């Protein structure tokens, strides 16, 4: 099932980073996520797959409380990050989002320079003491975003002037610049061409060495290529969750099998 060979990395992936228990999400009267239990491991790429409207993006947005910005959205259950409930009253979502970064479906760089795009997060979180510090952080982030070589000569050119794939890698660089522990990616390649997609996938695999990456994707091939663990969502239920190889070769649930063989979706 693997379409491209991605270097296997020996990474220990036993630690549980995020643990969700009995999560229910409602949009007004619509019950979007139904009783989801899932443990997301550290230094692992976890893919959420499923047909459109199955709730995988909604669940992803619960993990850094981006759903808070939607008035009608209500979340129940526990989501623990390193054993701490992120929906605890004492948790400030702003602090949480510095730890749990996010990359969106459509590349959305700020209409500012490449440098400012990456430097924005460190600036507002006070991660740099001076200009040299900040320069270093920006360079490191752009290197981790695998885009440094392409933009190092034009750091002050507008970020919106890059190609789609470059913009998306810039957004990934922007997300890692704040030193998050978890990186959430909401269909990061759906607006990219195959070559840019391959670059981003390569990058995702590299990011695994440092972060816990959770990726929502429509493409089952992509899930198979980049992830170690896969969760299959259907109509708001988490149908099956396990090792990617096992899900794709030997699914336990008939719905999973129907989806990955293309009969539903």
């Amino acid at each position, binding site marked *: 099932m693997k379409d491209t060979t991605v270097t296997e990395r020996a990474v220990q992936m036993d630690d549980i980073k995020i643990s969700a228990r009995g999560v229910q999400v409602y949009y007004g009267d619509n019950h979007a996520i139904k009783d989801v239990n899932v443990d997301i491991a550290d230094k692992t790429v976890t893919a959420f797959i499923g047909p459109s409207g199955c709730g995988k993006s909604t669940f992803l947005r619960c993990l850094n409380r981006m759903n808070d910005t939607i008035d009608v959205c209500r979340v129940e259950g526990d989501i623990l990050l390193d054993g701490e409930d992120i929906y605890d009253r004492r948790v400030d979502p702003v602090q949480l989002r510095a730890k749990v970064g996010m990359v969106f479906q459509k590349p959305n760089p700020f209409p500012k320079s490449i440098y400012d795009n990456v430097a924005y997060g460190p600036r507002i979180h006070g991660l740099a003491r001076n200009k040299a510090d900040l320069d270093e952080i920006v360079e490191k982030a752009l290197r981790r975003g695998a885009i440094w070589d392409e933009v190092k000569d034009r750091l002050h050119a507008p970020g919106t002037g890059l190609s789609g794939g470059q913009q998306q890698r810039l957004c990934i660089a922007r997300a890692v*610049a704040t030193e998050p522990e978890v990186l959430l990616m909401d269909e990061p390649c759906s607006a990219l061409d195959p070559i840019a997609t391959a670059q981003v996938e390569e990058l995702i695999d590299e990011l695994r060495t440092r972060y816990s990456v959770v990726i929502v994707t429509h493409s089952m091939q992509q899930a198979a290529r980049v992830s170690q663990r896969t969760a299959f969502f259907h109509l708001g239920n988490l149908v099956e969750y396990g090792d990617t190889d096992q899900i794709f070769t030997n699914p336990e649930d008939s719905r999973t099998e129907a989806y990955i063989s293309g009969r539903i979706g």
Partner: protein
Amino acid sequence: MTDTDANTPRRKSSLLELDARTRKRNAAETRFKVYGLIAVGIGLAFLLALMVAIISNGTRAFTQTFITVEMTLTAEEIEAAEASVLKTGKYKEMVGTAIETALGRAGIDTDMDQKTLLLMLSSSAGADLRDYVLANPEMLDQPLTFDFLASSRVDGYLKGRVTRESLSEDKNLDAAHLDLVDQMRDAGIVERRFNWRFITGADASESRPEAAGMGLSMIGSLFMMLVVLACALPIGVAASIYLEEFAPKNRFTDLIEVNISNLAAVPSIVFGILGLAVFIQVAHLPQSAPLVGGLTLTLMTLPTIVISTRASLKAVPPSIRDAALGVGASKMQATFHHVLPLAMPGILTGTIIGLAQALGETAPLLLIGMVGFIATNAPETLADGFLAPNSAMPAQIYEWAKRADPAYYERAWGGIIILLVFLLAMNFVAILLRRRFERRW
């Protein structure tokens, strides 16, 4: 599809011929285009008619007839005049003498006495001369050339508004005067030229339209606009940001939203009476003050600014907010660092359009006493500019248009030209700002 369907022979039709349906559809489209052109044409025709009327009637207000005489004033004369009871009366006599001399020098014979001759001049001639002498004492005892404003009748004669027939009922001027004016014009004593005083001067009394100008009402408008800008922009933008980005969506905010939209449609005179009640009767701010005018116009401008600001905040793509929140910015940081700069061109445009609206507003000013012959001197201090009674451009135009003398009617048109120049300039600035700030990349 059944077999019978598949076997029915297809009707032959050529692409080169239009069928009836297509012809009908095309005809409808052509008709619609024609209606559109007619509508646009009618609009343009009205605009053209308006511009022609304004320009043809208004440009005359910018020129004025002057009577130029040479005279030498001695220090003794001035001292004597200043010591007398009727000071400007004495100055008037000096003007009369100077005119007689000038006529004599030009070889124009007349049997009119000094008093009758002076009827050709503005009744402010004596006061103008006195002001000049007091301001320039170094010009005493040496020959000086002085341009006196001609009376509005003489001015009207040169502009073709006054004829010999129309003067038959006039108790001030008669046909003999006009003959004299013809002679003086040939001699170069009477001349019609550009009149700065119309742009810079103060309003004048009913009897001497030739001396009236827009200057002070422009200052009044300026101070009002400062008040509107200082109050309406921060309040309006803050309110819109709160409503758009922070306020929970519930019945209460819905109610506020509906009310703001309704406020934009409230007749301005309602704001006028509100200003009268709140700012003058309750807060006891001075009447006719640009401060009160500005505050009243602020009430009127706020809905415009709030609506346009909210529209431009809404137009900022939500992905920008997501991006900012995603890297851990607080809602306020996301708004002020990312959303507001992107919405800025729209906000500025809305503000300037709101200001332009306020600049042209007359009705509320009627109720707070900013209309009438109010100010004769420019404000001396900044505080005076806000607190001393003054008028505003549209109120001044309204005031002139309702006065009986046709010379004032002409000035009302001229005032409208000045007002329109300001409005066009503001719209131009709005366009410029939008171009400058729109999507900086």
